[in-house]
């Protein structure tokens, strides 16, 4: 029986919450636009940081240690090296790339290479036989490289040391900055919403007072306001969601999915924009609900 009562109260409060958004629309609009603007910036930041994270991952996955083997090494030694490398932890795959293959690949890259390389006889080929080693955890790539370098008959090891690491750390910093911006924006909006909703509630102080006097519990006074906040947040997230869905899809189409160079790939729009939309709606709802519940609290003290 009590359950039925609570359901009736909830339905009534949802109805009232929605009614209040419409009835006080000019004031609700202030809160709604406040959320809209923030969510737009949040959307850009979320899309940005997701993409940064994505191509960081792409680059990391692409990390390859090139193991150059001494020219004196014959195929038996090369096999031993391969076994040694395989014994190391954190190895994803090993691929053999002979100097002959490399020469062939280089011939295809430009005419000049072609002319020069074609003039070499097989014994004159100055290149090295190599293993292309991929690691599972790219964070520990330098460890692996150092270990490989110590194996006999390994001439040298390359994995784009400095360049890639500094690129990654730049991306890391960029991502952290974006996260800080997003979080602080959300906090700032939450307080802005608190104040905007306070103005709405100020004009309804009497309503709250009367409800209190006739014996409404704090919870039942708060509930319609919190639901109102939920609707404000939800409405405020509509435009940012549309902008994200259409804007990002268009951006992806126009750029062909890459940014500046083939190196930096954009995340495919679907289902990515779907998740971003859910995040935006959730942030809007939570901020709206938090804002109203904070704003109404002041008037609930007895």
């Amino acid at each position, binding site marked *: 029986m009590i359950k039925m009562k609570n359901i*009736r109260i909830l339905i009534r409060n949802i109805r009232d919450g929605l009614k209040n958004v419409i009835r006080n629309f000019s004031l609700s609009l202030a809160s709604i636009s406040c959320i809209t603007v923030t969510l737009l910036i949040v959307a850009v930041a979320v899309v940005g940081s997701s993409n940064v994270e994505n191509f960081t991952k792409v680059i990391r996955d692409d990390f390859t240690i090139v193991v150059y083997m001494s020219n004196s090494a014959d195929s038996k030694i090369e096999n031993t090296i391969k076994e040694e490398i395989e014994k190391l932890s954190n190895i994803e795959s090993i691929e053999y790339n002979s100097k002959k293959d490399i020469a062939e690949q280089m011939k295809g890259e430009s005419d000049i290479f072609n002319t020069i390389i074609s003039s070499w006889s097989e014994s004159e080929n100055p290149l090295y036989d190599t293993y292309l080693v991929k690691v599972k955890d790219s964070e520990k790539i330098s460890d692996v490289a150092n270990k490989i370098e110590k194996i006999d008959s390994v001439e040298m090891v390359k994995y784009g040391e400095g360049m890639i690491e500094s690129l990654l750390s730049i991306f890391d910093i960029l991502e952290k900055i974006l996260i800080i911006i997003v979080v602080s924006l959300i906090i700032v909006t939450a307080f802005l919403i608190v104040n905007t909703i306070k103005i709405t509630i100020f004009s309804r102080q*009497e309503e709250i007072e009367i409800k209190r006097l006739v*014996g*409404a519990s704090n919870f039942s006074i708060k509930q319609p306001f919190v639901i109102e906040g939920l609707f404000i947040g939800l409405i405020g997230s509509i435009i940012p969601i549309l902008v994200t869905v259409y804007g990002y899809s268009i951006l992806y189409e126009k750029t062909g999915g890459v940014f500046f160079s083939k190196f930096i790939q954009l995340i495919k729009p679907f289902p990515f924009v779907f998740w971003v939309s859910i995040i935006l709606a959730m942030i809007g709802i939570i901020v709206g609900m938090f804002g109203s519940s904070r704003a109404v609290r002041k008037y609930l003290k007895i």
Partner: protein
Amino acid sequence: MEFIRISDVEKTYSSGVVAIYGLNLKIKKGDFAFIIGASGSGKSTLIKMLYREEKPTSGEIIIGGVNVGKLKNRKVYKLRRKIGIVFQDFKLLPKLTVYENVAFVLEMFGYDKSEIRAKTLKALDLVGLKEKVKSYPDQLSGGEQQRVAIARAIVNAPKLLICDEPTGNLDPDTSLEIMKVLEVINDLGTTVIVVTHDRDIVNKMKKRVILLDKGRLRKDFEKGTYDKNEKH
């Protein structure tokens, strides 16, 4: 059977102003009592303590077995559901009709629609406003608005009805009508406490009169009158 017991109650506001000194009072179930006194006599403070808008600084107030002063803030609503309160300024919601102004109390408590309808119409009938259910407060006279407020106060069948200067904004005839309504409610078994300084009404009603003066109980008589010589 005593319904309200006030023992050694003192109230000092945080500003240092003492509003009530060592007050002892008993009100029986089904009583009709006027609380009278000049401004600053402590009568408003006293009834605010009854519905727990203020807490006594010391002493205790027991209403229907509940120690009101000890009530936690979040439990206050349970007390308020058993008390109806009527104010001088009616405190109606201007955007709601007469019916809605009364019904929203029950809606908030989660009654179902038919129950709300029956109780609301019964309360509005009791105060004589059944014809005006669809009107808005600003379309009503002061007396009618106060009757809506009374209907709202009694709609949940409270054991106690507290009226704070209910006729303060009304002319003498209308005031008397309001008092008749309160008397009917009292006859139906509700304890009624009325704060007023309208001497005509007090004299005509011949009910219990509790006179406060500068925070102290000065006089308390059954079927009392408002003595013209009494300073207030």
